[in-house]
């Protein structure tokens, strides 16, 4: 596969179409608009449907319709638009409809600003709509992962019949990097539960209403079982020099990139630092944390939001190790010097000593499923 230079927001669309997505409904918003623009250009050429909806509320309900018709469907937005979609996401989760939603986050709350931030963690990872449901969340940190994880998101959405998020930030969406795509396109099989206006699908019903309380609970139990299954089989994280690390840095998305630079520099400086980068934010890679906690003395969470990832890290560690926290907000990015100083300071306070460390080989990069 040859690589080409491409924006993350464009890579998402191309990957989606290769993965069999044939419906895109969206509404413009910075910094996600290029996704709708690319979809407008490519979707019809690929024989699919593109429509700019009158609102994000309409867009997500169009996704409900497209998914109900058995089509792989996606939308993309940013914080304020995702807030508006939460109603429809809850309905889709309740009706067990698959879809992929890209959230290219910006600053908030309210109108906030359009700079890259990670303040949508709670509304995306915890599910901002009503009721007992979860959304699966994949967090790319490069343009290549924008492509790869989008394709993965469609697989997961179908496997679990549930909305799946690709949660990125303005940087990952806007930046260009070399990216390679699979050379074959996928043709998804029409699911048997779809309603497509045919004799075969006439008996099907798509909806989320269960008036009978026992029936409702049974439905919720079945959904719960799905989520437990996902927690067991779909968790993904990248560990980088983390196995024996005394200090484990934790961050996702663009922060994961910065933390790689910090990790390399700290290790060159003799500090035994490693990186744990969650790729699935739900299901959260709890087992990675538990395992690394056996050796690590300290975890440092770095995020571009107000301690949202931090909460999950604390839950995962359950008090096993101390957790320190560095964050920037409003569109400011923690610089790698800033993080490095923080790491050095906490290494000193924790009594982590400098020693000779082997250099990190690039191929040491490891993605593990737990």
């Amino acid at each position: 596969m040859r690589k080409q230079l491409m924006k993350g927001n464009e890579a998402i669309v191309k990957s989606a179409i290769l993965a069999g997505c044939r419906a895109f409904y969206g509404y413009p918003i910075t910094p996600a608009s290029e996704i709708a623009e690319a979809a407008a250009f490519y979707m019809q050429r690929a024989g699919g449907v593109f429509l700019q909806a009158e609102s994000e509320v309409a867009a997500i309900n169009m996704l409900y319709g497209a998914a109900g018709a058995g089509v792989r469907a996606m939308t993309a937005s940013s914080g304020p638009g995702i807030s508006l979609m939460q109603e429809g996401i809850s309905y889709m989760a309740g009706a067990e409809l698959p879809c992929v939603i890209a959230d290219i986050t910006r600053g908030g709350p309210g109108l906030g600003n359009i700079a890259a931030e990670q303040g949508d963690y709670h509304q995306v990872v915890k599910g901002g709509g009503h009721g007992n449901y979860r959304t699966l969340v994949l967090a790319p940190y490069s343009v290549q992962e924008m492509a790869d994880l989008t394709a993965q998101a469609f697989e997961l959405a179908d496997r679990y019949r549930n909305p799946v998020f690709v949660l990125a930030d303005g940087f990952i969406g806007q930046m260009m990097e070399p990216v390679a795509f699979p050379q074959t396109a996928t043709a998804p099989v029409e699911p048997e539960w779809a309603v497509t206006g045919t004799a075969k699908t006439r008996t099907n019903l798509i909806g989320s209403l269960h008036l009978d309380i026992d029936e409702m609970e049974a439905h919720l139990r079945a959904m719960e079982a799905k989520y437990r299954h996902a927690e067991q089989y779909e968790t993904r994280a990248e560990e980088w020099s983390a196995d024996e690390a005394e200090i484990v840095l934790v961050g996702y998305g663009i922060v994961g990139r910065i933390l790689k630079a910090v990790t390399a520099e700290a290790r060159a400086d003799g500090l035994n630092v490693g990186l744990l980068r969650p790729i699935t934010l739900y299901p959260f890679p709890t087992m990675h944390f538990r395992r690394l906690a056996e050796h690590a003395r300290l975890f440092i969470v770095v995020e571009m939001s107000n301690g949202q990832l931090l909460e999950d890290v604390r839950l995962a560690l359950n008090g096993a190790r101390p957790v320190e926290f560095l964050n920037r907000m409003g569109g400011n990015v923690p610089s790698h010097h800033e993080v490095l100083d923080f790491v050095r300071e906490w290494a000193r306070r924790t009594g982590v000593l400098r020693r000779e460390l082997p250099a990190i080989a690039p191929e040491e990069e490891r993605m593990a499923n737990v």
Partner: protein
Amino acid sequence: MSSELTSDYTVVHTKSKAFYERYERKDDLQHQTHFCPGCGHGNIHKMLASAIEELGIKDRTILVGPVGCGVFTYYYFDVGNVSAAHGRAPAVATAMKRSSPEGIVISYQGDGDLSAIGTAEIVHAANRGERITVIFVNNAIYSMTGGQFAPTTLIGQKSTTTPGGRSAATEGYPLHVCEMLATLEAPVYIERVGLGDNKQITQAARAIRRAVENQVRGVGFSLVEVLSPCPTIWKMTPVEAQHWVRDVMEKTFPLGVFRDRTREAQPLPQQKPAPPLEEIPGILGVADADLPEGNAHAMEGSREVDLQVRIAGFGGQGVLLLGEVLAEAGLDAGLEVSWLPSYGPEMRSGTSNCHVRLSRQPIDSPLVAMPDVLVAMNEPSLRKFDASVRPGGWIIYNGEAFPREYERADVHVLARPFTRLADELGDPRASNMVMLGALLGIADVLPQASIDAALRRLVKNPRWVALDERALDRGRKIYKEAHEGVLP
């Protein structure tokens, strides 16, 4: 069908085949509906079911149900059923129709659903001329939730949330959906009918059938509003309620056809068939065969590369393109690259900047905090980024002279009036490429073939390619003249 023989007439009970024989999705009383005695929904359901049966489209029908008393359409209709969120049925129907164009997609909505919470969805579905059918049941009240005020509640009409009666001063006037939608160009058929007496009922059945038939013919958006009695909430007997539709409601909501372009409307032309799967990578421009081989071979045996560049200037000076050509050339040469722009309003006015990294190793952070080279295309950019340049690094500055206040002893400076130099070459807008030429002189890591290839990929106009090539040469020469032998 069953019949009862009485002394002087025969009552014939027929049940449309578009209904289930037995309502198994209902938990009890599976031979009757959940509707109250005298409710209009029962009649409207019958009319719709008859239309579906008569048109022979039971298998093709996709019925999108609302939230409200109509929520249980899937209990009764033996068709494909979809239950939508409150007010969103037209959006759901839009996508179902577009993805299953052979399906007959019918949105069934009440007045709370359609004319309050779903106003945006119905207006835009109608305005796009979605080829769907909408049955709009208007009983002037929220019935399912127990009788609250609706946009269609009559002036003076009492509800649990307008206990003194609707007042125009507080709640405004009843919303006329048909009249409103009839101001749009796209709808093909809009009619308001009533269930106020037998004559009205006959017309209602005709209108509903027509609205469905229009879709079978594929001609466009059709909506039928049905004024429908709600004896329970209105606190009337079924007969009183029926008369109220005819004698009172109709005065606010006059019956009639508000739009009828059924005859002249044309079905959409046949859609082009979807391309075969094997053509998709080509359509997306990601097929290996269509991508250049690159010039990585030209880099064999060359030294380590780790170049970090920040480029900044006014929007319109070609800041981002400069960075893109550099990154594209790096990729062509087989390097790892990243290009990260500032985005948003900054692009449209004021300053613009981008980060570019080229490396043999995977690039960790694409953010360039301490550039090896700063390309400052104007003075504000110099002011902003001057201090960030790595000691021993370079500043390429677009100006007659380097401003004294930014002078640093630990960096190299190449200050030239690049805009004027570009103007001498033929166009001041080529200043970005002159500066890129100078940058490529300083950081001499890329093969010429990669730079040529990148330029041709990103600049489509051949006249500009020629000019940009001259500009790159000029930039290299400027660097060479100024710093021959000075460099490490």
